[in-house]
């Protein structure tokens, strides 16, 4: 997990979206649902043209009714560490045919699995909405030393 991931729990900042959910199922079951292409298709509602293996580039076609016109979405599979961590890059999760996705930056999606009482804790993080390469962003976070969250809270209160 990155330093940023540890800093923020279930939250949405301007750079990242994080979801935490506990599933009443064994970790091996959850892992299969997330990384087996056929199972992923079922709940994600996106048909994949290849297997989920590190380094693979696959394309996903949205199967949700009313979205058949959306062009296939490129997914660059990064890390696949059995029953623990799965990550890929794609264009942000806002499916719409009107968008030229290739002009947008790619975001990083991470699934982190942990065993917990009665099931599996899953953390889903999508980050990189500012289009800034990860290395540079880490620098900004270091300089900021946690001030980011406080400042954004101010702004959020102001715009709410």
């Amino acid at each position, binding site marked *: 997990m990155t330093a940023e991931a540890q800093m923020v729990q279930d939250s*949405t900042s*301007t*750079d990242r*979206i994080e*979801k935490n*959910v506990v*599933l*009443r*199922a064994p970790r091996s*079951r*959850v892992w299969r*649902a*997330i990384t087996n292409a056929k*199972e992923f298709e*079922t*709940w*994600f*509602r996106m048909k994949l043209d290849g297997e989920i293996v590190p380094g693979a580039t696959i394309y996903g076609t949205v199967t949700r009714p*009313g979205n058949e016109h959306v062009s296939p979405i490129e997914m660059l599979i990064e890390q696949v560490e059995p029953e623990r961590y799965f990550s890929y890059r794609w264009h*942000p*999760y*806002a*499916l*719409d045919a*009107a*968008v030229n996705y290739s*002009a*947008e*930056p790619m975001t990083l999606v991470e699934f982190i699995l942990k065993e917990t009482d009665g099931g599996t804790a*899953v953390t*889903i993080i*999508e980050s990189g*909405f*500012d*289009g*800034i390469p990860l290395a540079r*962003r880490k620098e*900004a976070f270091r*300089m*900021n*030393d946690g*001030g*980011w969250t*406080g*400042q*954004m809270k*101010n*702004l*959020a209160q*102001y*715009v709410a």
Partner: protein
Amino acid sequence: MSRSRSAAALKATEAVPVFAALADATRLSLLGRLSVNGPLSITNLSEGTGVTRQAITRHLHALGRAGLVRDARQGRERVFALDLKRLEKARQYLDHVSASWDAAAARLKAFVEEEA
């Protein structure tokens, strides 16, 4: 439904420069101060920060290009104020993506728990 999706799509391309402008500690703190005490002049904004006026000016221009602040003349000074419209659009875009993940997480939960 399709209308709200295309509204979100428009925001996607607008949102990226906004988030990029926000990914800097000095610019964030400038926005924080403008949100509490704005509008402020460059002199006001550089007071007690240890950041030079030139640097503040550069950051304000970057924020202006992203549509996050606008400036106006006030007497002899130029004052800067937060422009919330673009920030609000960027926030709506992120909310839209966040809602997509909520729905996906709920479907994943239903999918793995139905066999349990």
